[in-house]
Structures are given as C-alpha cells and as structure tokens.
C-alpha cells in the first residue's frame, strides 16, 4: 500500500482507464522507500500547479504493475521508482530512481507545457 495523496492505480484496467481519460499522465511506480518517497512528494506538491496533468502512483510489487515493468522504455532500469510520462496514452518519457523537482518539472514543461501559477 502506498501512503501518498496521489491517485492510486490498483490494476491494469485502472491504468488503461486513466490513460484513456487523460491527455497528460505521470505515473510513479515504486515502493515506500527512500528513492520513491521524494518523487511522490514532488508530484503531490506540484499537482495544484500542473492542473493539465494527472498524477498517479502504482505499487511496484503489484503483479498488475507489469503494465509498467514490461514497457520497452524501462529496459535497463535498475532503480525504483520507474516514473512514466504518457501523452495521449503513449509513453513520451521514462525515468529510473530518485529525481529532483527540477528534473521532474523540466520533463513536464517540455512534454505537457508549463505550470499555471495560482
């Protein structure tokens, strides 16, 4: 169980539904560990500003997370979390292991457009 305030993806069907209903999606697939918690924290913090992006998480050890673990884009990844950015259901970027806020926002800005300040 991931103790975050992000939308939890519980199954492959859930994952497919979110991708079909949202143009821009970021999924952080990890565990409750030192490399993953900071990335969930960043997603929670910027969710308000990036209203045009759907932020989700998925448990790495959930067997249905194979929808992420088996992506060709994560070949060679050996560090959690696997963070996947989707546009119109297609993977546009994937990162492995801990990321900084700056790394995350620069991907979001490049792939989905900049944040709208309140």
């Amino acid at each position, binding site marked *: 169980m991931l103790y975050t305030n992000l939308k939890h993806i519980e199954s492959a069907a859930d994952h497919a539904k979110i991708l079909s209903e949202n143009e821009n999606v970021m999924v952080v697939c990890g565990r409750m560990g030192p490399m*993953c*918690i*900071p990335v969930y*924290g960043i997603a929670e913090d910027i969710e308000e500003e990036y209203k045009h992006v759907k932020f989700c998480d998925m448990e790495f050890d959930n067997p249905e997370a194979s929808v992420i673990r088996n992506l060709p884009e994560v070949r060679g990844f*050996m*560090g*959690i979390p696997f963070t996947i950015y989707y546009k119109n259901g297609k993977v546009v970027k994937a990162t492995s292991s*801990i990321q900084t806020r700056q790394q995350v926002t620069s991907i979001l800005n490049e792939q989905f457009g900049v944040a709208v300040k309140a």
Partner: protein
Amino acid sequence: METNTHYDAIIIGGGPAGLTAGIYLSRARVKTLILNEGTIGGQMVLTHEIANYPGVESISGYQLSNVMKKQAKTFGCDIKSNITIQSMDLGNDIKTVVLEDGQQFSANAVILSPGGRSRTLGIKGEAAFKGKGISYCATCDGDFFTDKEIVVVGGGNSALEEAVSLTKYASKVTIVHQFDHFQAFEHAIDEAKNHPKINFKMESTLTAFYGNDKIESVDIKNIRTGQSENFKTDGVFIFIGYIPNTEFLKDKLELNTYGEIVVKPDMSTNITGVYAAGDSIAKRYRQVTTAVGEGTIAALAASEFLNKNKNNINHELLFQ
C-alpha cells in the same frame, strides 16, 4: 512585483531538527515559516524503520515525519516544501530569503537546519547510470541484482552492512575501498570478511563507468600501485558517507573545514539572530534524537533572542 511576507522566524530545512524548532516556535505563537528544499522530513523520511526514537517502539521515517509535520502545522507553522532558495541575506537585523520562483520572505531570526546527504563519487557517468546500475539504496534496488555480480563502494558501517544484505540477491559482491582498513564496527567487518560471496579490493577507487543501456563495467584503480583494471559488473552500490548541505551558506557564516556550521552550546552561530541545528552543525553524532534536541535548543534560544528584541512572544508556552 512579488510581495514580501514577514515572519518572526524562518527555518531553513524541514527535517527533524527544523520541524522540532517549528513545533516549539509556533506553539509559543512565534510566527514561523519552514522552507524545505526536498520532501518534508529530510533524511528521516528516507529511513525504512526507526526503532531508536524513544517513546515509539518502531515507526517508519515517513510516518514519523508526517506526525511531526502535522504537529507543527497544528500549532500554526507555515511550511513550504520542494522549494529552491535563490538568495539569502543573513547579515542585517531583518534577514531576507528569496526563492527561485520569486517569492520573498523576511524574518527577525533564522534557524538553519539543512541536514546532510549521501556523498556521491563525482565520477563522469555517475548521474547518467543512476537507476541503470548505480544505486545508493540496497533495500530499494537489491532485487534488481538477483544472481548478478555487483560492486559496493565504501568502507564504513553502511557499506559493509549493505554489502552483506546484498548477498541475499547478488551472486558475488566486490567491496572497493580506498584505504587498507575499514572504518566500521568489528562485528560488521567480521561478518563481511567471513562471507563466502564477498571479495575485497582495498586501497582502490572507481574512476569510470561503462555501459550502454545500463552499467557493464567499471575502471578500478589501485591507489598504491597506480594500476587500473577494467572490471565487469552488473551494478554499483555507493555508500561513502554523508556531507552537510551547506554549500549555500559558504561566505555567509562560519563553517568548519568539513563545511559544517559552527555553533555555540545555545545553537547560535557567529551571526546575530541566526541559529543552527541538526546534521549540518559541527558535531560527532548524527541521529533523529540529536537533531530533535538541537532543534529544541535553537528554538528556545531564538525565541529568547526575539523576546529581547520584541516583547510580544508568549515565552511561557515554550516550556509547558
């Protein structure tokens, strides 16, 4: 134009030291802001299990961080996390902080508690292979290396203990250490030395990483002989100690040669109205309990300072 928000006290860093200071100050009705660069909780949030925090038998660092954060917020402390400080002026009576996004804050007192972080090797390719063979967390990434051969860099307790724990997954672990002896407890050294899956390359250091999608080999240089070898490996775990997050304080106040903030027993620094607490100060032991203790002292001293300069702080509440 951005407006400035004034506080009585600003705390830089929201780990256990900063959160504790935030709890004490806010509870005494000192208008307080915590500015934190990463996730609230600092290194504590990265700790799977804390079993040595008195009064709590066992708790994840994430949970303990959330409780401390909630306590601070309940008393009225403002908290901003995942921010970046662009500039800071501590020299005047009114201290100012400007964030990268243009927000400006000022305060009569500042508590510095930026903690520390894992040291990296600083070798070319280290950032590119992070998560693709290079890891800093055995519990997180160990299972990616099942039946694989890995290198562990370091010679302290963390390196030796994590090397042993990684033998659950890896078929062979080679410890690379720069000295001819380890800086660890005897039992940790014995356990590693007696483990059939663990080998050692002493007086050696990594100088390069190679691979395509992921790490395939590293260069290991023997410091004594100067000879280098290319060593095939599937992964590298790095545990080479911690450094204080004080780069942004250079030239602003007194740091020692290790970059640690020099404090007096009341946690005051050499700058009037500026206090420091936690892992970033010059001290021997770095634990949640010590950070919490210093955060308390810094908050009490800062509120006394504020009280002397401005008599509207409810000092009584601090000690209840």
